[in-house]
């Protein structure tokens, strides 16, 4: 995770503990569960990336937050539900712990976010965010723990999960990589 201040971390944790109806409704044929752990997890970088996209590409007339504008922008661009875009930002309660609910469209979502960030790498907000991050590889900036969990979920030997893990493995674009 990027080097955020304590204050920023507190804001995120407050956000993470908020009840969101979409988190409860993220089940069915579009999702699978993986990465079970005993503790809470919030993917701060992913949320910030969506906010940046919302700020730069979102509906200027909308009164929603940049984060929500970013969610709407990506979901509209891919023709998928907002729930699928949002759910990657945190682990949700399962049993006596927490797990990721991963949409099968994760690779498409990540590719779209990366493309949008790459187009605006020179923008002040984007470049300062990218500099804060621990990795220069976009996949590692956006979904490092989700990717680990998806790789581990290959144990189930289900084709849809194997395909998603392979698709994500191919996303090795780095910040500043223009090829």
């Amino acid at each position, binding site marked *: 995770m990027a080097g955020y201040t304590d204050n920023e971390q507190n804001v995120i944790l407050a956000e993470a503990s908020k009840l969101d109806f979409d988190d409860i409704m993220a089940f069915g044929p579009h999702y699978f569960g993986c*990465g079970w752990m005993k503790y809470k997890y919030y993917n701060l970088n992913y949320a910030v990336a969506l906010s940046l996209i919302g700020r730069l590409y979102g509906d200027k007339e909308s009164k929603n937050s940049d984060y929500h504008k970013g969610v709407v922008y990506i979901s509209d661009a891919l023709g998928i539900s907002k729930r699928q875009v949002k759910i990657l930002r945190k682990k949700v309660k399962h049993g006596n*712990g927490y*797990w990721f609910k991963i949409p099968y469209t994760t690779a498409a979502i990540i590719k779209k976010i990366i493309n949008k960030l790459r187009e605006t790498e020179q923008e002040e907000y984007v470049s300062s965010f990218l500099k804060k991050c621990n990795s220069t590889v976009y996949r*590692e900036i956006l979904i490092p723990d989700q990717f680990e969990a998806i*790789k*581990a979920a290959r*144990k189930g*030997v*289900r084709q849809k999960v194997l395909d998603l893990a392979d698709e994500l493995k191919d996303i090795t674009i780095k910040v500043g990589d223009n090829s």
Partner: protein
Amino acid sequence: MSNDFDPNSHKNLELFRYYLNRDLQKIESSIQDNHGELLGYFTASLVDIFIVSLFGDNLKCTENILKIMYIAGLIILFFIISCVVNKIARFRRIRRKESGREEYIVDEAKQEMIDSFDNIACDGLLICESYMGKYSLADKPYVRDFYFFEVIHHLTKSTDLFGEIYSHRDLYVSSKKAELIDTYRVNNYIDFARKINEFLNKEMSKYMADTEVKKDIENLNIEIAKWHYVNESGREIDDDKLNRARLK
């Protein structure tokens, strides 16, 4: 080249272990499937018995043709229910494996991962070491390519396993519990994997045209860069700190 076919070489031992393991897994999964089937048959039988006990009296006064239809109906119901129960059992089994929760609640699953570290991840590094030596001695280009690609394959297989252990250190790593992986083994594994990765990066300039090879090495770089040395309780520590302690 003749030495490459030494029956006790890493590759042959690895192949032996691999086929043995694969066959055992096949047997295990077939036993598990049979478990599911048995559950399906058992449930379907119970439903049939329930129906017979409820409506059996009605048959005493009905025509033979209706009796035959009744029995046929019970047989069809039996197969439908056993099929549905099998599918549900299989679904639950797969989802539990995918969830990552199994290792927290089933001791055998946790032990299986520790055994995989001992027998696959660590062996993988030794195989890589052996192939790196052979790579530099091989004079035929296709033999060198073979060794290079095999190093990528075995290191990837090994790091995939270790990556899971590293990200669940609370579950697998401890210097206090004898059944878990000792922290000095974890640190040594990281050292070893870094050295092999350095070798791949040094030699990869010859394979830059192959995007698949490039991507696989990039993924290895990403994975290995995430790892840091751990202390006695499995917490990440500064790499320099351990190096300094070793030099003392």
